[in-house]
């Protein structure tokens, strides 16, 4: 016996289901991705600049043992003086080179590389294997050597170390007080010497080791004004000497050729873990991660080479020497990968 009440209920339910389906379809066709909310701002597909494949259009020797490369591609990111790029060589080796062309040129990067006879093979590959017409992967640019505002500047370049400084010299506003000491083994091995001489005029001191011996840093720094920014890029010995001779009141900015290699002198430093209230010492030749793990064994990490990003930690105080290949400039501002990066000074404070 089909009770009239059951029939009415079934009819009502069917009508309700049809109406719901129609309403849902309308809602979905008006906004196909309804009903999930979106994260604002989105994270995926946004942050990291993509590596570009650039065409090598010039590969020329510009000084003894120095080649200049011109890499072209459309719509390259702009950069500031002091910036460098990662060049991925055909063998897979990654090497960092300072940009020494025109920062406003978004169609090409210019960089220069010295042949290091006893190096790890990267510079030899750049000199001997690269030929015009090849496509190379380039990552960056990044800047860990930015030109800060200062009342006066002293630049110290050792050989190929002139490359990050050259765009700075070009960018300094007229009337800025600055001078440059440019050292090298021989005049013939020093790239961009003519251009530097033209830019600097009588503010330039050239010290070729075979003619003049070692540079006289004391004379260079004599009479340096308070607040002068000293920019130095060159061999480790030169940078250590500049650090030694640095006059009081001046700030030092160093650019190392090969961060992330064992070439740099690793100094020991202290790391305070503020939330856990502990302080650890990171010895030379060991990592922050290793020191932290002795105190906090549950600390997350993985690749230990600075590419996976698992060990990223927030930095509260202290200047970091970033040696990873992953973090963006914004992330570097307040965090570090503790597996490879180190302190620039003698102390860091981490939020862990």
């Amino acid at each position, binding site marked *: 016996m089909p009770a009239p009440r059951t029939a009415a209920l079934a009819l009502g339910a069917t009508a309700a289901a049809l109406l719901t389906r129609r309403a849902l379809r309308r809602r979905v066709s008006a906004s196909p*991705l309804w009903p999930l909310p979106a994260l604002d701002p989105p994270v995926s597909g946004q942050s990291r600049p993509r590596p570009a494949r650039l065409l090598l259009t010039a590969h020329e020797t510009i000084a003894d043992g120095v080649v200049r490369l011109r890499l072209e591609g459309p719509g390259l990111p702009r950069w500031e003086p002091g910036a460098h790029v990662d060049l991925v060589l055909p063998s897979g080796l990654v090497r960092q080179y300072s940009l020494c062309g025109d920062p406003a040129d978004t169609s090409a990067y210019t960089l220069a590389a010295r042949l290091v006879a006893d190096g790890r093979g990267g510079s030899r590959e750049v000199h001997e294997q690269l030929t015009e017409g090849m496509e190379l992967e380039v990552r960056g640019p990044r800047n860990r050597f930015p030109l800060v505002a200062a009342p006066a500047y002293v630049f110290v370049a050792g050989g190929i170390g002139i490359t990050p400084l050259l765009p700075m010299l070009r960018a300094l506003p007229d009337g800025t007080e600055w001078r440059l000491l440019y050292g090298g083994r021989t005049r013939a091995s020093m790239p961009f010497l003519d251009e530097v001489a033209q830019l600097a005029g009588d503010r330039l001191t050239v010290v070729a080791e075979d003619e003049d011996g070692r540079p006289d840093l004391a004379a260079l720094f004599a009479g340096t004004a308070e607040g002068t920014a000293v920019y130095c890029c060159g061999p480790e010995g030169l940078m250590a000497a500049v650090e030694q001779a640095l006059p009081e009141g001046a700030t030092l900015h160093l650019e190392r050729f090969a961060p992330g290699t064992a070439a740099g002198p690793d100094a020991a430093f202290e790391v305070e873990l503020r939330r856990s209230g502990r302080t650890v010492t990171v010895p030379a030749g060991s990592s922050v991660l290793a020191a932290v793990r002795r105190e906090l064994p549950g600390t997350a990490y993985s690749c230990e080479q600075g590419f996976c990003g698992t060990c990223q930690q927030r930095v509260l105080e202290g200047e970091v020497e970033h040696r990873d290949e992953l973090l963006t400039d914004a992330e570097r501002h307040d965090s570090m990968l503790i597996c490879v990066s180190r302190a620039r000074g003698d102390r860091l404070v981490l939020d862990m």
Partner: protein
Amino acid sequence: MSNTQARVPLKARPVSFSWDGTPLHWVPGDPLTTHTINVLHLLLPAGERWFVRVYQQALPLIRDDRLREDVIGFIGQEAVHSQAHDEVLPHLRELGLDPTPYTAQVDWFFEKLLGDRTLPPGRPRRWWLLERVALIAAIEHYTAFLGNWVLNAGELDRRGADPTMLDLLRWHGAEEVEHRSVAFELFTHLDGSYRRRVRTWATAFTALVFLWQRGTRFFLANDPTLTDGKATFKDFHDRGRQGLLPGTGDMLRSIPRYLSRAYHPSQEGDTEQALAYLAASPAATAAERRAA
């Protein structure tokens, strides 16, 4: 823990891909297959970042040194997977198919809905962590399934699929096969409750089916070269029969395997095949040289 195959120490490989030469329909003439597989690029960047964050919290709870080592290797591999798929997204945007409306939702799904919640410490916090560890174990059952499938999907080669995209998928698939036991072993180590396994499987499976069909529809509807981008279940099923996508039957048969009380991921897939692919993969071998 029984593992019939030899144990491989897990390590992340710093791969990098160049997408400049990859066309929009990288399986030539087959937008449906292309976009069904492309959904991986929508889900994995946020999803695998979430794996990493959950496992970072699980790490201090592990009481077994070998498992801890495996989890550490697993985390790095997942982090690089997430980065590698993330780099495909700007390329899709350049080709006129902006994935952001969808990925922003996936971001919300993993960062907010499944993210860290303000819970009182102690039992509620541990419950939410275990629930997510179990979800990851269920999802990893499917990533291993898909990884094993793509390593054997010869039909994609025969159709002339883009070699860079195939290398991304197979490098990723091979690492998923390589580390397929880790998520399940972590879940068993921390909890292993059968009820939780079934419950989280149901959630993960429903979410995957929902997000996947929606992602495929999203791509087909927004593909600038298609005027009427629609897909039916039958299209999908047919692709499965041709070997262009995983077969429907295979997928259904994988369900009772995970729900069986005797399940262990080592019974799925072939570690040797995965390692052989990684030894030959252009991206993985370049990464090997880079890390050296």
